[in-house]
């Protein structure tokens, strides 16, 4: 929705037109109310009419944890730098599950909400932030699990205090990636078909169940370019005191996050004006 041009007591004056720039970074904050409602809607809708309901919040990550443990640590020796495998894998999974979930839902976001997009003046950015808010419960469960397990078997180093920053970084990256996939998928449905593939292959080329150090040399470059690699390195260093984190890879990841934010915001701003014509 366009913003009011004047804010006096008379009815606000809005102008809608092709040349008007509609999107502003402040809209993210300005639409928090509706984003919250969308997030709550998604969470409620997800666990209604399900026998196990919110129990899936626990079952789903445990299932993935089991699969990752069997696939990586069961088949080969994973070099964790002396960290017990359970918290090591959980750190990777906490990051991975949130991004995987957000991208999967994000690709379909404008399409499953086409009714809203076509028939109501919903601020579109609120759909993105709302969907991320709706993915917070599974993330919170994972994070709690990670913290409890780490406290029990390993203990925290002092740099664990950076956790809020790490979470902010994860949210920023996920927000940027969701902006990109959601707006592109509204136009190019190819993304809807491609995303399951990306997500399924992604867990093998991201050090979720294994570490960057122990990875074979031939995929080391590929792993270093994956923006999630540096993020997971940073999480493991901060929470688990992983020795010798790869600073270059962390820097690559930070730079890609900033880049993704800039690019994602521009793509979204360009495409959101005619979402209603494409979904």
């Amino acid at each position, binding site marked *: 929705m366009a913003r009011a041009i004047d804010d006096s007591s008379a009815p606000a004056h*809005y*102008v809608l037109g092709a040349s008007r720039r509609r999107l502003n970074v402040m809209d993210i904050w300005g639409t928090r109310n509706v984003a919250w409602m969308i997030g709550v809607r998604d969470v409620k809708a997800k666990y209604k009419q399900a026998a196990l309901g919110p129990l899936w919040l626990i079952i789903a990550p445990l299932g993935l944890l089991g699969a990752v443990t069997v696939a990586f640590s069961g088949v080969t020796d994973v070099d964790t730098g002396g960290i017990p495998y359970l918290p090591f894998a959980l750190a990777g999974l906490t990051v991975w599950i949130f991004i995987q979930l957000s991208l999967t839902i994000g690709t379909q976001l404008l399409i499953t909400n086409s*009714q*809203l997009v076509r*028939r109501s*003046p*919903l601020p579109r950015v609120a759909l993105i932030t709302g969907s991320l808010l709706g993915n917070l419960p599974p993330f919170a469960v994972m994070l709690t699990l990670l913290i409890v397990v780490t406290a029990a078997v390993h203990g925290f180093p002092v740099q664990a205090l950076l956790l809020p920053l790490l979470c902010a970084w994860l949210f920023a990256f996920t927000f940027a990636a969701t902006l990109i996939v959601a707006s592109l998928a509204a*136009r190019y449905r190819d993304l809807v078909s491609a995303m399951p593939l990306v997500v399924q292959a992604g867990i093998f080329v991201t050090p979720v169940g294994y570490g960057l150090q122990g990875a074979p040399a031939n995929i080391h470059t590929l792993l270093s370019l994956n923006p999630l690699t540096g993020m997971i390195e940073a999480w493991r260093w901060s929470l688990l005191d992983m020795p010798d984190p790869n600073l270059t890879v962390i820097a690559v990841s930070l730079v890609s996050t900033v880049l993704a934010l800039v690019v994602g915001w521009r793509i979204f701003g360009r495409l959101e004006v*005619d979402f*209603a014509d494409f979904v």
Partner: protein
Amino acid sequence: MPTSSERPADQPELALDCRHVTKAYRLGETLSLQRSLRMLVPGHSVVDDRFRALDDVTFSVARGDFFGIVGTNGSGKSTLTQTISGITVPTSGEVHIWGRVLPLLEVGAGFHDELTGRENVFLLGAILGLSGSQVRGALDAIVAFSGVERHIDTPMKRYSSGMKARLSFGTAICFPAETYVFDEVLAVVDEEFRNQCVAELQRLNAAGRTIIFMSHDLDLVREVCRSGMWLDKGKVRLVGSMQEVARAYHAGALRHATPVGG
């Protein structure tokens, strides 16, 4: 106050002002494998067929008016409602709006089947930019108007289509706004509820609210609207008093009795 230069001097109080609004769509599939392959062939470009759903539409609605828009299917009425509600952006031209616009373009638009009636009212309120207290303030009126007291905490998927329509209308009508936009939505409800809605719209209008009402039901439009516009194939054919517009539209529709697709 909006600056006086933004308004024509002879019409001091406007709710809506459409200036040369054009909305063009590409005809046919915008993307397909066939299309992608064709673009790869050297020297073979894909020509876009553009279709103007709205073609240089210029009109204004005075504040407090009850304004009807008539036209056959495919005349651009729905595109116009989407444009003035801020859902889609015109290809060229500008829409000026004074005050909050509350659109009801489809029965149940914005509702989610898994949520209860109450949750849906709050969701829709948030979508329309209302605060929680504004929604709470309207809730009693919405429930009373739509007559769904006993079902307000039941998931929407167990509502009958009539109950859904009632709640949808109740929400749209009871929320505060300066301008209300209705697109062909009264067609789906029964006579009794339709009369209730019309009475409520007239009450809102008497209280100074602007109502913009799209329909191809000429009798209804004649009954409720003061002034109006005839939209034909994306172009404005006539703007004037509703009686005059309805008469011309009726005559025109008889003359070109060929149905227009879309």
